[in-house]
């Protein structure tokens, strides 16, 4: 993430200055294309969970990240499907072995993708 983009965001939201810098620094050291907020949350425990979510949403609104939703399979891993809106999650999905499973009691996990 470029420093000037981050500076602009900090200028617009000085109340989250330190949190934005920490998340930006975390993103720089984690080049993966998919960002799981659970991992960010565990790594940046010093940031309050609500404030961390706000900062991640600021990055979405600024166009640096794209928010999508995934579903956990019965074995606890994330299924392949990815949805822009949680209401678009179908009642049935397939797991990593292409076995269909019922999403009813699965969990919804927001994930972020870096904007291309």
């Amino acid at each position, binding site marked *: 993430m470029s420093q000037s983009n981050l500076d602009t965001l*900090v200028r617009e939201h000085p109340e989250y200055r330190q949190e934005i810098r920490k998340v930006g620094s975390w993103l720089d050291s984690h080049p993966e294309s998919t960002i799981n907020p659970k991992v960010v949350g*565990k790594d940046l425990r010093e940031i309050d969970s609500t404030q961390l979510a*706000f900062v991640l949403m600021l990055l979405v609104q600024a166009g640096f990240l794209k928010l999508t939703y995934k*579903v956990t399979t019965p*074995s606890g*891993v994330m299924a392949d499907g990815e949805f822009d809106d949680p209401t678009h999650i179908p009642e049935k999905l397939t797991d*990593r072995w292409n076995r269909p499973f019922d999403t009813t009691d*699965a969990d*919804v996990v927001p994930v972020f993708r870096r904007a291309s």
Partner: protein
Amino acid sequence: MNGGQENEVDKLLHELNQRVLADPKNKVKIIQEFYSEQLKAGNGNAAATTLIVRSIVTAREESPTSEAARENTEAKVGAIPIWKKPSFWAAVLPSLAAVIVGYWQFVYKPAHPDDSPRSQLSVFVRNARTQDPIVNAKVSLQTENNQREQTTDSLGSAMFHITKVDGTDWRIYSSCDGYEKRNIRVDGATVGNKVELALSEVARSSTTVKGTAALDTIKGTWEVVSTGDAHNLRIQKGTFDFAPQRDKSILASATFHADDMDVKSSGTATLQGDRLSLSFSATNSAGGSWNGLGDFTLLSPSRLSGRIQSKRGDDIPVTLNKVN
């Protein structure tokens, strides 16, 4: 976004958790209904933020690192979390091993296995005399295979991600204007995840002037000097004016740009030896006002180094050079 919006998200999270706890077999359906309701109410962003907070809270609860973290997350998800109930663990434990194996085998695929994050190391830098955290200190971690640098935050802490390639033989360097540099060698295998470094203030300069001459030295305009990483500086430009009075008190006024806001301050200062203590009232361009204290050391006849209190009460390091 502000504190009110954060409160709103916390309330939404509580509401969502109550619904999920009441009917845990229909999680997706409940989340979908919740999201739709909020969308219709024009709260799409708050709903999305709530789902993100829920994920973060759950993850932190699954692997708490401290009692404080545990208490914090429990407060967010409700007074009696379901995972504290014996029946929950009785149901979950048999499948936990399978989940972990599945996760590592099928999900966790680091691009460079040896670079995978292993843990975090927090380095806390403190003033050896006052024990106060030192903000904006440079902290450098030199491990067996690389070296990286961070700047301490408002709590005096710098965080490093540790990976397997870092080995266990490390050296931590720290420096900050006005303090003596220090480095320590640590054993990564036994150090844990927190290291504290106390820095001593620099010895008083032999060039420091005393008495009335010192007042004459202070008199005039001093300019803020930017040192260190420009992106982490909280005060980047401005001037301080000191006007000694006959009774040896000093009138002080300043205009500067700090924390992305313009600040004006006025007050009084006293000089004892080479130590300048400042008491001021300040206003910022956001309409805020506060009374604060400052503390500077005269490092040379043309250089002052110290800190001033920000509106939120923490210290902002400041270095000043005399301009006239």
